[in-house]
Every structure is written in C-alpha cells, then in structure tokens.
C-alpha cells in the first residue's frame, strides 16, 4: 500500500490486508481501497486482494481502480466489496456509470473525482480530463452515481486541510452524498469538511498509526460535530 503527496512521491505505508483489518478494528466508519496502479499500469484490479481484505472487515468497503465494465464491478462485489469506485473509465465512457447503477444499484456506485484547481484529472492525476469538477459531478449524478468521492490533488497529502472551496462547490452542485478527500492533518480539518460534505476521508495521518482514529473521533466530537 502506498501514499503520496499531491499524487506524487508514493511511499510504501504497509500491507493492505493488515492495515484494512487494523482500521476496521479501530472503529473506522468505512474503508476505501484504491488500486491507483490499476489504471496506470493497465492491469486488472486485484480481486484476490479484495477477497483477503473483505475477510477481515466488519465495515463498508469501497474498491476502485481499473473498473471498466459492469462485469469488472460484479467481480469486485462478489469478492466482498460493497461499492466500486470508477474514475478514468467513467470519464472516457460516461455511460459506464449507468451500466453499473443498473446492474449493482446506485448505492454501490461511487464516482471518484480527482481535481486540481477545480478541473478534473484522470489516470491517477496524470492527464487532464478537460472538464470542470462540479459539472462532471452533476453529470455523474444524472447518470446514476450513488456517491461522489472528491479528492483535491492540490491538498492531497499536505495535511494542511481539505479543499473546502472545491468541496462546497461540488456538494452544492449535487444532491448525492459527497466524501471529501485530500489534506486532512488534524481534527479541526475533519470537522470543517464534515460541515460541508457527508463524509471525510483520512489517509496519510492514519497510515502511520491506525489507533489514532479513536482519539481523532473524540476530538472531532469535542469540536461539536456529531460523529459515531
């Protein structure tokens, strides 16, 4: 498993099965597993890895990376994923979102949007998609998406706070749940994001120490944001 800063400088942060189990046990609300090399390397998503992670989880599990068809998605769900994330393949062929929603139900379809300066980028941030993030989110909703996972490349890995402007623009443009991603450094950042989005994704600050989740949750609660 790897994590970078602004999608670059990826470093190894541990075994995905062990980390996934540790998060589930530490009280995470949900686990999102993105196989970022599946698109870059043009190889199929690792269904076997999903099977092994799912075996250890008791929380919702979203898997993304390399999903190009409803059959790809179905294999992931049968392996134990609850939702699939689509990104580059949906940008290339937006009808994919509808095909997934019809086969799996909208609640299982997460459209992941990576944005830089409010513009969408594909292939793990390496290519411009030539679209505006809010406009793409709205189209994704119309095509049957169930959730938007919105990652700010500008904020990713910086630990300086979520991109609130981007998050507010996208959350305001759709009536779907939006997961804010990229930039979490402390509880205040999470509380700010939860004031706008329906969920906040954490990566860098937890990968080193999954046990920090419990204290972080307590700090967010003390800031007046209701969390489980």
């Amino acid at each position, binding site marked *: 498993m790897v994590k970078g800063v602004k999608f670059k400088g990826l470093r190894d942060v541990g075994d995905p099965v062990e980390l996934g189990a540790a998060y*589930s046990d530490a*009280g995470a*609300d*949900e686990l999102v597993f993105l196989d970022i090399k599946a698109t870059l390397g043009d190889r199929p998503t690792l269904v076997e890895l999903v*099977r092994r992670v*799912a*075996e250890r*989880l*008791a*929380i*919702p*599990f979203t898997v993304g990376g390399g999903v190009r068809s409803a059959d790809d998605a*179905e294999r992931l*769900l*049968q*392996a*134990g*994923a*609850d*939702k699939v994330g689509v990104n580059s393949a949906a940008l290339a062929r937006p009808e994919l979102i509808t095909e997934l929603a*019809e*086969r*799996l*139900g*909208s*609640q*299982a379809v997460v459209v992941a949007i990576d944005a830089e300066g409010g513009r969408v980028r594909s292939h793990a941030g390496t290519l411009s998609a030539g679209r505006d993030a809010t406009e793409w989110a709205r189209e994704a909703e119309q095509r049957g998406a*169930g*959730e938007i996972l919105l990652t700010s490349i500008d904020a990713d890995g910086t630990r300086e706070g979520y991109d609130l402007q981007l998050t507010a623009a996208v959350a305001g443009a759709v*009536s*779907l*749940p939006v997961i804010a991603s990229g930039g979490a450094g402390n509880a205040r950042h999470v509380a700010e994001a939860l004031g706008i989005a*329906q*969920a906040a994704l954490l990566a860098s600050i937890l990968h080193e120490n999954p046990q920090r989740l419990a204290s972080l949750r307590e700090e967010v609660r003390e800031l007046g944001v209701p969390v*489980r």
Partner: protein
Amino acid sequence: MNVAICGYGAGNVRSVEIAFRRLGAELTDDVGAADLAVLPGVGSARAAMAGLRERGHDVALRERFDDGRPIFGICLGLQLGLDWTEEDGGVDGLGLVPGRSSRLLEGRVPRMGWAEVDDRGAFYFAHSYAAETPHATAWSEGVVAEARFGSFFGCQFHPEKSGALGALYLEEALSLSRV
C-alpha cells in the same frame, strides 16, 4: 446452527456470509431446512425478485413463513419481504409482511452512512427506498429501521457492515432460530 443465505445472483453476499461464519454459524444452500434463512440486501428489486424466483427461493421462503420458521431480511431483503416496492417502476415483493416500500424523498439520496437507530446506537445504512409498514419495530431519522411480523424479521441497515454493534445484532437474529 446453520444458516441459508438466499443469494439471487447479484452483488456482495460475501460480507453476510463472513459475518455469520464469524459468529460460528454453518452455511447451507438448503433454504427449506436451514435454522435461519437470510434474505440479503444487494442490487435492485426487480433483478432480486427474478433471481429469487429462478432459484425457487420465493416458494421456500413462503413455506418457511407459513410454518413459523425464522427469516431474516437485510436492507433490500427487508423490502422484498413486503407486498410491493416502488423501485424499478413497481415490483411485487414476497408479500410476507404487510406494507410497501417507497423512494426516500428527504435529504441526500441514496441515504448512505452511519445513523442512530432509536437508542440502540449507530448502524450503517445504504438505501434509496424505505419500508412503510404497520409492523415497524425501530426507526432511524424518521425511516423504518426494523420490522417484525410473524417469523419474519428484517432491518434496513446493514448489520454485517456495522462493526461490533452489528455483530451483536446478528447474534440476536441467530438466537431467534434457537427458539
């Protein structure tokens, strides 16, 4: 204790299988003979009902219900136990529990995430439709979270995805089949 999970050819039933195995249950394919039959909650209503009929699960579940033997429905599985759902242009359910399900009209839809169920704590929900039935036994933010009628017992949330509290809830479902 053996549990039959009534798959209908779509989505993730593995989480439910894993959760019941963790509790020590054995899984069987025999919906008629199992101590507990579970109707999992994945996919869309029309495809699910077609899948149940194709496998003869609709008949087996009706027989179980008439014999007073426990059936546990999760999410869509709860909704399929009702007479009818608005989903997919209108689909007849198994008609075990009086009621119907309709599309959620308030808040962000699908309704995704953890929410309190009465005073029992938070469970994980992921749904666009919800049950309307006089046999509701628990609520979450104005939405029916659980219903019980005869030997049918169903919840709108996903206990198999609701951590430790969810595991306790599944144990309760299992204990129904011990009576």
